[in-house]
């Protein structure tokens, strides 16, 4: 199973800035291993976030997002103590959901 995400959500005025790090290879499918065989594509395809259970955005990613991805966004109206949930799903069907409290 994939490692947990690291989510930091901090109040900034009337919104919260959320920074997320995800543990993922983000393999493009274009590289070859030492023996010359193509390393199969393996990357996060879908990302979404919710604020206190309500969806705030969905994203689609391609394999050119960097390994161990970073993402930053601002949630309007989020206050200290609110919950931010982030979900990712990769092209092999693996997924991960993690939650952070706004501080």
């Amino acid at each position: 199973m994939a490692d947990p995400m690291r989510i930091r959500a901090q109040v900034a005025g009337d919104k919260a800035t959320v920074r997320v790090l995800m543990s993922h290879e983000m393999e493009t499918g274009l590289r070859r291993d030492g023996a010359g065989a193509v390393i199969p594509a393996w990357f996060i395809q879908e990302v979404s976030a919710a604020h206190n259970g309500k969806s705030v955005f969905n994203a689609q990613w391609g394999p050119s997002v960097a390994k161990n991805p970073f993402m930053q966004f601002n949630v309007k109206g989020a206050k200290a103590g609110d919950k931010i949930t982030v979900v990712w799903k990769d092209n092999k069907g693996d997924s991960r959901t993690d939650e952070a409290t706004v501080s």
Partner: protein
Amino acid sequence: MQTRREMLHHSGAVAALLAGAGLLPTAAQAAWNKSAFEAKTMAECVKALGGGAPAESKDVSVTGPDIAENGAVVPVGCASSTTGVKRLLLLVEKNPSVLAAVFDVTDSVDASFNTRVKMGQSSNVYAVALMNDGRALYAVKEIKVTLGGCGG
């Protein structure tokens, strides 16, 4: 390289057929848009996502360093200050496929996202805002990728 391109081109064509020309998922849990992620140009990509002809606009901004010490991780951002933004896209012109990420915007978030992308070489990076009315507005920035380290 050429073999791979041909292969990608082929599977892209199949994907386009399967997707049905111009029929795009609009539900919140949209399926991954294969043809958009296989597009070789901004115009092709925007079209696959249902947008019109891209036009440069001051209402959209793209952020990133002028020069990247390593193309494996290049910090980039896309944002729009105007209303009516449906989606924000990040594209790298000279990558094998141009599209890196699509963010579907709602009223609950700023139309502003930062992430990090891979860049195979120095290239233009585009932020594109797909508007509710179908327009596609973009901003562009050139990011130079340098060779680093001992090179071994």
